[in-house]
């Protein structure tokens, strides 16, 4: 699986470099979900891009199954924050694109099976601008998993959705990840989301750049969990880790 060892990232700027990530040590648990929580601008998305092979770290190394990750691999798929769908392709064309690029002849059949599973088969010939946010998100997940990846990286996948759709999608995607035996990384700024979906929760340190701790968790998607004292205790613990450095 993906392992980050002492990973650092410094962006070059005219007034000198500025550190986005420092000494990140993390590993993605096999067939489990790692939720990464941090405030906006803490470097979560940059870390996800490093895990995807889209961005090269300036320090440390990233490995996938013991091999250094230098570029994107077929085994690692990404769901982007704003979906990253192509407006000029229909939903079916968007979802089937990874297979088409590989020259897979069974594209249409596989796309229809997956669209049925995702509950968006009726929209197969619609363009992204004719779909709701939830349908677009399902399409983005479909495109990510159609090629049979081992790891699914998700960057704030539910942030633009209404609460009801968000809740439905959390359940559907969790179920899908279990069915497909995917190892998942969920980057989010929502403590609630991390607690509901994560088997492990990595918390960014106050001010970002480094991870202050990784907690074990048992993700529970039922609404009762949100009202439980266990939820309050754990979310308080994460909030403290996020705010730790600030003294008021």
């Amino acid at each position, binding site marked *: 699986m993906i392992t980050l060892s002492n990973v650092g990232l410094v962006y070059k700027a005219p007034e000198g470099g500025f550190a986005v990530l420092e000494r990140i040590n993390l590993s993605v648990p096999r067939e489990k979900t790692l939720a990464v929580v941090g405030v906006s601008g803490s470097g979560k998305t940059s870390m996800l891009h490093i895990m995807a092979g889209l961005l090269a770290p300036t320090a440390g190394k990233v490995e996938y199954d013991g091999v250094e990750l230098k*570029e994107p*691999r*077929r085994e*690692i798929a990404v769901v982007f924050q704003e979906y990253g769908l192509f407006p*000029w*392709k229909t939903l079916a064309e968007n979802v089937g*694109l990874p297979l088409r*690029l590989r020259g897979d002849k069974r594209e249409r059949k596989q796309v229809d099976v997956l669209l049925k599973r995702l509950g968006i088969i009726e929209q197969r010939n619609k363009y992204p*601008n004719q779909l709701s946010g939830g349908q677009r998100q399902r399409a983005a997940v479909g495109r990510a998993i159609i090629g049979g990846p081992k790891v699914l990286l998700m960057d704030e996948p539910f942030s633009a959705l209404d609460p009801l759709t968000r809740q439905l999608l959390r359940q559907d995607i969790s179920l899908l990840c279990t069915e497909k035996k995917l190892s998942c990384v969920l980057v989010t700024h929502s403590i609630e989301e991390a607690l509901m979906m994560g088997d492990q929760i990595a918390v960014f340190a106050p001010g970002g750049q480094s991870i202050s701790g990784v907690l074990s968790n048992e993700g529970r998607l039922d609404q009762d969990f949100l009202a439980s004292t266990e939820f309050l205790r754990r979310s308080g613990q994460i909030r403290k880790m996020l705010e730790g450095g600030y003294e008021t």
Partner: protein
Amino acid sequence: MKRKHFDAFIAFAALLLLWHIASILLNKAFLPKPADAIWAFLRLFIGGELTDHILSSACRILGGTVLALVLAAPTGLAMGRIAAVDRVLFPFISLLYPIPKVVFLPIIIVLFGLGNSPKIFLIALVIYFQLVTIIRDSAKSIPDQQVQAMRTMNARPAQTLRHLILPCCLPGIFTSLRSTLGMSVAVLYIAETFASFSGLGYYISNRMDCREYNEMYAGIIALSLLGGAMYILLELIEKRLCRWNIPLLDK
């Protein structure tokens, strides 16, 4: 009748009315009544006198536009997606863009002779710079997430060009083609009045020299209709190739 068509009809009728009033107020031979000009146009068009001129002009506009597009597309795409190419070419494009290319017409005629080539080349030269600038900007503005999505799918450069860059730039290319169409017609007119024996520009200036104003206006109507027909053709091609943009185009 659709609202859009009704609005166009009202605008056309208003224009004819203004023209009619102006011709009565001026009462000069060089501004005939619209009915006379339209009648002359119908007579010449049905009689076939305008056909060769319309065809010559249409071929020149199409030829110039296609030549400009064929040259501008690779340059603009390369400038938009490859920083090193942009660094080298952008200063040249910026310097050459504002120069009025029509002034080079005598030199172009010396270089290419008197046939269709100098007219096609001049139209291409005039619209090339606008096309290249728009294609470059469209290629530059492709959202990072879409580029990254292609990378995560291990797309080869040719696949990225086909599935991402070209379709993303298409609406910009069509907008640019539509906006340069008026410019192409104007340049065509100038090119055809200079050492030319065919085309609507030649016909209009020739009739003006002969003081045959009804026929001159018939030529102007033909040139306007040619521009309008090409505009509609571009819109139809755009609707076919950019189907995902149709709701936006129709708004």
